[in-house]
């Protein structure tokens, strides 16, 4: 089995649940207290796909209202991006299209997985209404609290990064 390492960044507005998604994926737990990420925290987890062990070095970047305010150096050498927004807070997805465009310019080859988090806070009808006003269709609707779809987000990105490196 071959082994590769890839840097992954989690981007998006503040308080959308980036740290919680990582905590759920890496440590299988959900932090109930809100913790602001000041700059960046780094975690690591290996997943196995297609006879490849992929070490995901996950950069949890402090949320900013616009991606343009994130220090440039944080993007360096990133192979994949998870863009997270809060389904229950419209201000966290109003800038989504511009943010994604900004990231694509910085990292033209990196696959981007778009995630609508905090699904557990919405009932089915409200979720349908929110879906109809999203500027871009997300790849996954997740709940870091309930663990819904979290694993799939990282696996999809891992698969996309393997495809790029083929």
């Amino acid at each position, binding site marked *: 089995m071959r082994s590769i390492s890839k840097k992954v960044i989690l981007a998006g507005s503040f308080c959308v649940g980036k740290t919680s998604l990582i905590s759920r994926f890496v440590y299988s737990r959900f932090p109930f207290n809100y913790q*602001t990420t000041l700059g960046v925290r*780094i975690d690591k987890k290996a997943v196995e796909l297609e006879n490849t062990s992929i070490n995901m*070095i996950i950069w949890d970047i402090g949320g900013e209202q616009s991606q343009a305010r994130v220090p440039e150096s944080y993007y*360096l*050498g990133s192979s994949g991006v998870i863009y997270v927004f809060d389904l229950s*807070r419209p201000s966290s997805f109003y800038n989504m299209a511009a943010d994604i465009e900004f990231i694509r310019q910085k990292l033209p080859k990196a696959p981007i997985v778009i995630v609508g988090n905090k699904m557990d806070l919405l009932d089915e009808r409200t979720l349908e209404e929110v879906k*109809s006003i999203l500027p871009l269709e997300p790849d996954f609707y997740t709940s870091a609290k309930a663990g819904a779809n979290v694993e799939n987000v990282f696996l999809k990105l891992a698969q996309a990064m393997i495809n790029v490196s083929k």
Partner: protein
Amino acid sequence: MLANDYKIKFLSQKAQIVLFNEKGRLLETCNTLIDVQSYKDRSLYDVFAFLESIQSSLIELGKEGGELYFPRVEVLYNQKEWVFDFIFKRQVEDLSTIVWIIQDLTSQYKYLYHVQKERNESIIQQELLEHKQKSVLLQKEIEYLNKFYQLKINYFSKFSHDIKIPVREINGITYFLKKHINTEEGKEYLASLETTTTNLHKMIVNLLELANLSQNKLFFDKKEFLLKELVNNIVNSFKYSTTKQQVPIHIHIDPDVPIYLHGDDVRLSQILYNLLSNALKFTTVGMVKLNVITEKQEENNWILRFEVIDTGKGIPKKSLSSIFTPYHKLNGNNVQETSGTGLGLTIVKELVESQGGIVKVSSEVDKGSTFSFTLPFACA
């Protein structure tokens, strides 16, 4: 001690310098903050995930000066949360050596952490307040519109009721006229008159239905019926209706769906008829499919999901959110596309939601649409 000595002593406690080569092999460290010395026999890239993830950027680090700066790196080390600034640059005397400057700014950033947390929480509070203010305004607007809407519905209800009788009389006269008109031209005019009055009658029935729904005058029956028979009757009715059926309707009922259901069969027929009629209207090639699936079952209570899938022209994403509003019709050049009252889907939504169900629509232009709804039933 001289001031300069104090300065050196103070700074030496707040910073660490690590020298390593491009392969990550440790050359020298003062070990002030992090114990790097222990890893002298290993590549630092294998030890520190942070370094591993920026390895390629470090190798590309300019040999003509320049540096990489990573502010506010949060690290859990020796069971304590640290916040470091990392700076990487080439050693001037030996360009193959990378200098890693670690600055401990934990106490400064600790203060910033609280400021940032309070700022984030205050922005969210502000957003919540704005939402509350908006929802109060919207509530007032809704109340006003509801009054206006009720007035309109009352008027339509009375008007539709009054007009229904003469329209029915025109229908009857048209029927008798058929026996007296023998010319081809006359028959054509009569056929047009018949179609027009039939559509007018449908429109009036729909308006009355909507008026009843808006005034909560509807009652839902609970009786036993055969689902398969109901579905077949509806599908067969299209063979004799004025809606020209150009594509086949395929029916699929999941084997686990009960044969007998307890519920309002008339309302279910009405919902399915409206959705299928709509699907047939917009589908000229392919097919229309009706699926009945069990969504949930608890003891004798079943929630069934009905899906009407077509391969028609589809609905643009921007129109999806308003498709269930009264009088909404898609713009199109085809005459068929603009016929109808524009109330069918509104009635469907009202009928489903009044019974505790949910209606959904998904669509892709030029590929087709799927309308689905859930309804609760009892089953003996």
